[in-house]
């Protein structure tokens, strides 16, 4: 059924169609509509789930971990300050191999207080052992939640489904909401190999000495390494069911492009518009939108960048003291390759500053005119 819904509700519908069994959440702008709709669904029986209305995001994640360990499919959603309050437990989720799926609305970190979009909240959770999916449309949000359950449960690794504040969370788009029967066929109930039950008493997560801990982390990484292929396979399976492919990246006219933009999230769609405009003006540009940040799709990125003469990475985030975070990943993807591809790193749109087609025109202009970037970081639209 086609519905006009906001990005936040796309998360709720994804969680509902995925038949989440336990939801624990705490309100934060701009995530609130996700949990409002889910609590309505739980109240009127549309969704057979327990909704624990916790007193903080920290408890939200703690309750999700407990529920997941008991064998229930578990969902939560948060944003920014809420996500970073959970930080300790994000490690607990991946270390405990609990396949929780969480929506995160990208919102800039305080101070100063901001409710507008940037990616520093989720990207500062990079090393917590979660898979991270950055969405570009409401349709993608819904589709990603359903696929994230499947991939997470197969690997026993949690997933974060990420969308921009307001430009996606509060923007209404036409979304095809799949039939429940078909989703049930695609995503069978969660059946963990091991769970907490008095029938088979185990101690989970107890004191682990140097003789065991190392191997537990090795196994987590080994499973994470399987994720890129599994995400692609799951995407193809989803395409067979619902006609839409998710995959690791979106390649928009990169094939013959001399200059490739690298983007993520909603600005990736704006970049597509800019690419089409610039193509009409005769410029050979393309846009590579990275959908999956963890695990980082190194192989795919290398392959797509192979024919390019220049690459411009646009980051709506920063790792202070170094650079944009996607820039770092792309740079390390290119290290050791034969080409000496000039890589330009731009930072734009922090704290919700608009990123428009004109922003990309400026970025492309700069990249075209120069052989190498004149500054380590090229700031776009900053008032100096």
């Amino acid at each position: 059924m086609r519905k006009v819904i906001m990005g936040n509700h796309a998360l709720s519908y994804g969680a509902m169609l995925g038949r989440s069994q336990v939801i624990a959440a705490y309100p934060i702008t701009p995530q609130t509509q996700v949990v409002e709709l889910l609590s309505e669904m739980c109240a009127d029986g549309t969704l057979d789930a327990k909704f624990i209305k916790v007193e903080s995001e920290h408890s939200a994640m703690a309750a999700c971990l407990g529920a997941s360990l008991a064998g229930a499919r578990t969902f939560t959603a948060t944003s920014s300050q809420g996500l970073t309050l959970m930080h300790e437990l994000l490690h607990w989720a991946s270390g405990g191999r609990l396949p929780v799926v969480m929506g995160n609305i990208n919102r800039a970190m305080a101070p100063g207080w901001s409710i507008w979009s940037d990616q520093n909240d989720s990207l500062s959770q990079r090393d917590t052992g979660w898979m991270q999916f950055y969405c570009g449309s409401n349709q993608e949000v819904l589709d990603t939640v359903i696929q994230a359950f499947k991939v997470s449960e197969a690997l026993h690794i949690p997933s974060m489904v990420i969308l921009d504040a307001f430009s996606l969370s509060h923007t209404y788009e036409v979304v095809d909401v799949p039939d429940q029967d078909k989703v049930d066929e695609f995503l069978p109930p969660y059946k963990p190999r091991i769970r907490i039950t008095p029938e088979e008493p185990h101690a989970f997560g107890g004191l682990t000495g140097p003789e065991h801990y190392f191997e537990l982390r090795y196994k987590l990484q080994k499973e994470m390494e399987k994720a890129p292929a599994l995400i692609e396979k799951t995407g193809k399976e989803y395409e067979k069911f619902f006609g839409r492919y998710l995959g690791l990246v979106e390649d928009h006219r990169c094939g013959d492009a001399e200059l490739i933009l690298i983007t993520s999230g909603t600005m990736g769609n704006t970049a597509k518009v800019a690419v089409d405009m610039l193509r009409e003006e005769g410029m050979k540009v393309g846009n590579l939108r990275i959908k999956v940040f963890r695990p980082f799709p190194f192989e795919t990125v290398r392959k797509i960048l192979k024919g390019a003469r220049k690459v411009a990475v646009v980051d709506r985030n920063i790792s202070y003291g170094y650079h944009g975070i996607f820039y770092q990943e792309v740079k390390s993807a290119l290290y050791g390759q034969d080409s000496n591809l000039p890589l330009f790193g731009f930072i734009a749109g922090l704290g919700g500053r608009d990123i428009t087609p004109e922003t990309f025109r400026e970025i492309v202009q700069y990249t075209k005119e120069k052989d190498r970037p004149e500054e380590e970081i090229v700031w776009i639209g900053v008032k100096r």
Partner: protein
Amino acid sequence: MSKETKEKAKKMKLSLPEEELMNSGHLACQGCGATLAMRFVLKALGQKTVLCIPACCWSVIDGPFPYSCLDVPIFHCAFETAASSASGVKAGLEMVGDTETTVVAWAGDGGTFDIGIQALSGTAERNDDILYICYDNEAYMNTGIQRSSATPYGAWTTTTPVKHFKNRPKKDMVAIMAAHSIPYVATASIGYPEDLFRKAKKAKDIKGTRFLHIYAPCPSGWKTRPEDTVKLSRMVVQNAIFPLYEIENGEKYTLNIKLREKKPVDDYLRIQGRFRHLSDEEIEYIQGEVDKKWGKLLKQCGAN
């Protein structure tokens, strides 16, 4: 054992079930009160129990991976999450069809009075169907005897040295829990196993959030003799420092161990190294505070 004693023992009836869900091989110190607390509680709750244990002595006592000295499953959870983890486990179990298992949050005083109080308050306010048990050894013992808000007035700890001993009263956690109007709040002491057993059993059969506060001495942290653990656990009740009572629905107070003759606090304090520095005046002050609280409790229990 003399013939006479043997005959006597034969006639004696066990006041607690014989079945043990706690086995040998645990890692507790000698004379640890927390191990007795667990042993008695599990006798009452039985095998259909799940424990959520945050960072505390018991996260070590149980044994390192892959061992466990308990015959019930354990979720070793983050320090401040005993209550919220238990809420999640309960919801999860129910959603997979298990409505019978008793889900227990089992935390020390630091994890309850301090870092875990927010999550605990949340769980209690929602009246989630879990049993929260705090075994109270009155300081951060697992990390090396640092003061917590459960440390009593006058006590030495490694962060309240003798020159600056703790000069604030112990937080009244039971009153805080009663203020949440949850169905059941009770205090218990390992020195009164039958009372503790009865309360754990009673709590098991109540729906909603139940809170059990168990006094559990720590010889290593209190500088007491291991063989005095049980003695202290009886003295503390008899001198009314830790009276045994229960509160139903935040209103109905019942005193469980009535004191025909309330003992002075002096003897109790004097045999503990952590109070060795206290002057007579300070002990007198403590006595005054205990008397005040006792008087108030008697009024609340309607047992003047």
